[in-house]
């Protein structure tokens, strides 16, 4: 009998212990399993892409929890921003967020935008007929926070796609009309 057959993945002691630590956790202890596997949302995002599971809610939930666990302030994938403290007293502004993968949900978008400022409301748009997400949505934020969100998040890599973030056009248009009236 020969050890370690050639047709199998041969684990080192460390790898075996790491897998065992995850396997022995209670099935409901997601945080414990993430801790045992190593919380790294950037690597996890790459893993989701490679597995082709960007629309799988279980993968996305783990990704979301990993982001929440990390002490750092990741935004999307591979983007980090400094802490931002801006006034939340200003009037709310709707921020358009587009180029979203199917995997995106309101909780995840809120988590990302909260790294930049105060989030008042998140709404992702679904197709009326099919019910499937259309890949864009709106985030309501105080005006200064919205400006910051556009500056920081536009183009940020989110699950392998560059986010498109801008102040919603209708807000911008009404703003322009208001300026014309004032003049």
């Amino acid at each position, binding site marked *: 009998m020969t050890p370690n057959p050639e047709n*199998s*993945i041969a684990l080192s*002691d460390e790898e075996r212990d790491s897998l065992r630590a995850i396997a022995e956790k209670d099935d409901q202890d997601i945080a414990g399993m993430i801790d*045992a596997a190593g919380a790294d949302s950037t690597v996890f995002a790459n*893993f989701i892409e490679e597995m082709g599971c960007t629309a799988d809610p279980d993968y996305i*939930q783990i990704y979301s929890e990993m982001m929440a666990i990390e002490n750092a302030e990741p935004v999307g994938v591979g983007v980090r921003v400094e802490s931002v403290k801006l006034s939340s007293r200003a009037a709310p502004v709707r921020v358009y967020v587009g180029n979203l993968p199917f995997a995106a949900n309101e909780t995840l978008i809120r988590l990302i935008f909260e790294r930049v400022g105060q989030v008042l409301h998140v709404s992702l748009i679904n197709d009326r007929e099919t019910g499937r997400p259309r890949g864009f949505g709106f985030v309501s934020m105080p005006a200064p926070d919205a400006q910051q969100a556009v500056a920081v998040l536009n183009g940020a890599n989110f699950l392998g796609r560059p986010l498109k973030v801008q102040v919603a056009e209708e807000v911008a248009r009404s703003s322009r009309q208001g300026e014309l009236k004032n003049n």
Partner: protein
Amino acid sequence: MSEQLGPAKTGVPLPPGNRRTWRVSPPDLMSFISAENRKTALALFDFEPDELENGKLRVDLRAAIKPIEVRHKEAFALTEADYYIGCTSASIEIEFDSDLVESHSTGAAFKVAYKHSETRKRSSTTKIEPSVELSSAIGDVTVSAGSSSYEAGNESVFETSFAYEERDLAAVAAGKSVKWRFDPPSGDKAVRSFLFCNLHLFAICGAAQGRQNGAMSIKPSDISVFGPDRRSFAKKKSILLLFALYRAKRRIFRPRGITVRFEEVLA
């Protein structure tokens, strides 16, 4: 530089008995990938084209869907693995560019430990070459290395065998393509083990005049980690076990499946 690939279909009949050669890209057939990639793949296939005496083209697919065994480096070969990475469903598809699928393997219900062997004599001689795209300072070139040859008159043996748990095979043909899909049997019986099978499938397309090109794919789905008892872990635990292996650079080969394009080489 190698031969040029022919157009999708020229309409010019090839002389009978002509040796026909197809080039596959990327070269991800079972015959061409490395032993390391075979070890860490969940679903693989080879294909064997044959020009029939009536001039039609028959393509036989040999598919293998298997778990990846994960065990400690000092574990013995004949012991159960510590973990298995496997899939519980899979699909296989072949699509021809030009001609309609006229006949194909039909659906079936495979019971536990099903085994069937089929031998057929080949009508023509064909060759499959891997195609590798290389980029260099002087431009892009296509090279081929190694090949699989199938001689007229020789017999090919195709085996279908299933282990562990039953699955239903459904076949859907639509014009130029046929798709087979394995799923657990309908009803409330919970399938908890992974797919582990060899499978023979075939498709025959219309008049094999001119060059016959197309694409084939095999895609595992519901990839999970299973224990030594071949029962899957809870979904999120399974994901995190896979992630831990991914972080340790223990990657699955083409976890989203393998798609290859085959194009007949202009002689």
